[in-house]
């Protein structure tokens, strides 16, 4: 699936550029993607290490378990396949909390740790489990209460009311999250 989409994005884009004679731009994009990736990784690498360091303290001190216990009743309903005392819940809840506060960069390492711990429960190691998909749907729906980057961009362009988008964003992302979880549940039944 991702395989087809990837091929489609590349082929449609590059063929269209070739038809229009945009060879310079095309080779610039092809050769430049390595540097673009490295730039992004260099930007997030220190942040990831930093958060993993802080998180390691949170885990060892038992703070992560405490946090997990707080939103666990809801998570147990959403993730019926994960055993009740599994470490995944700690990482999942930290990821969700960071995302809600608009800290995408802090959320990523928690999210990957969550995926790694769900992979331990997964029977087929090359195939996504139901819990993993549910977890990623929560992430892709992007439920947040502070869309930080957009508000700062609005401020940059002298918006009279930069915060006006906060309430619509909360409502729209929450509704689409519920919808996402709903169709995820239906779809997973079809795959059993």
């Amino acid at each position, binding site marked *: *699936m991702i395989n087809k*989409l*990837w091929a489609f*994005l*590349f082929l449609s*884009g590059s063929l*269209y550029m070739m038809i229009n004679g*945009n060879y310079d*731009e*095309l080779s610039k*994009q*092809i050769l430049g*993607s390595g540097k673009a990736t490295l730039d*992004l990784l260099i930007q997030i690498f220190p942040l990831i*290490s930093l958060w*993993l*360091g*802080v998180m*390691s*303290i*949170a*885990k*060892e*001190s038992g*703070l992560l378990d405490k946090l997990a216990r707080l939103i666990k009743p809801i998570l147990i309903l959403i993730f019926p396949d994960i055993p009740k005392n599994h470490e995944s819940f700690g990482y999942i809840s930290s990821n969700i909390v960071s995302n809600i*506060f608009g*800290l995408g960069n802090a959320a990523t*390492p928690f*999210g*990957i740790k969550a995926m790694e711990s769900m992979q331990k429960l997964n029977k087929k*190691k*090359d*195939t*996504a489990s139901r819990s*993993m*998909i549910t977890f*990623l*749907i929560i992430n*892709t729906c*992007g439920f947040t209460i*502070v*869309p930080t980057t*957009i508000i700062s*961009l*609005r401020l940059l*362009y002298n*918006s009279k*009311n930069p915060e*006006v988008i906060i309430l*619509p964003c909360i409502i*729209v*992302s929450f509704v*689409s*999250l519920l*919808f*996402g979880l709903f*169709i*995820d549940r239906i*779809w997973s039944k079809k*795959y059993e």
Partner: protein
Amino acid sequence: MSRFFIPLIVLFVILYGSIKKINVYDSFINGANEGIHMVRNMFPSLLAMIFAVNIFSNSGVLDLFFSFLKPLLLFLKIPFEIIPVAVLRPLSGSFGLGLLNDIYKVYGPDSHVGILSSVIQGSSDTTLYIISLYFGTIGIRKIRYALWVGLLADLFMVLISLILVPFLT
């Protein structure tokens, strides 16, 4: 709000660790060390994504795909400018922001188009990036229905924004 959140959470975690008498320094170093492996695992899937998405977004092929939709959008009073925002939002975070930047420049951040595209950008995340990054890092190849559900939720989000934004602002 998030201005206080980062310092407070770091302060709280290290304070809590010290009170619980664990070796916070060693614990931090062990955790930070994992970052190297994580970034190394992220690289291939991230490179593949950026490679394809950059070519697609810069090619202008999107305008071609959606030019036939123009009369319908005009009829429904939906501004044409939000279509690229809605389509590129699940594909690339930086492109979404770039488009938002252009829209603010031309129409202003407080215009209907400006607010609508802000809400679309702010109410979702980069679905394709998240799915390929997280599955790629732990070595999952068969992602089953994950992408479909993610993209369907994104489509639903755009429709909800179109309906709700006029009432909420």
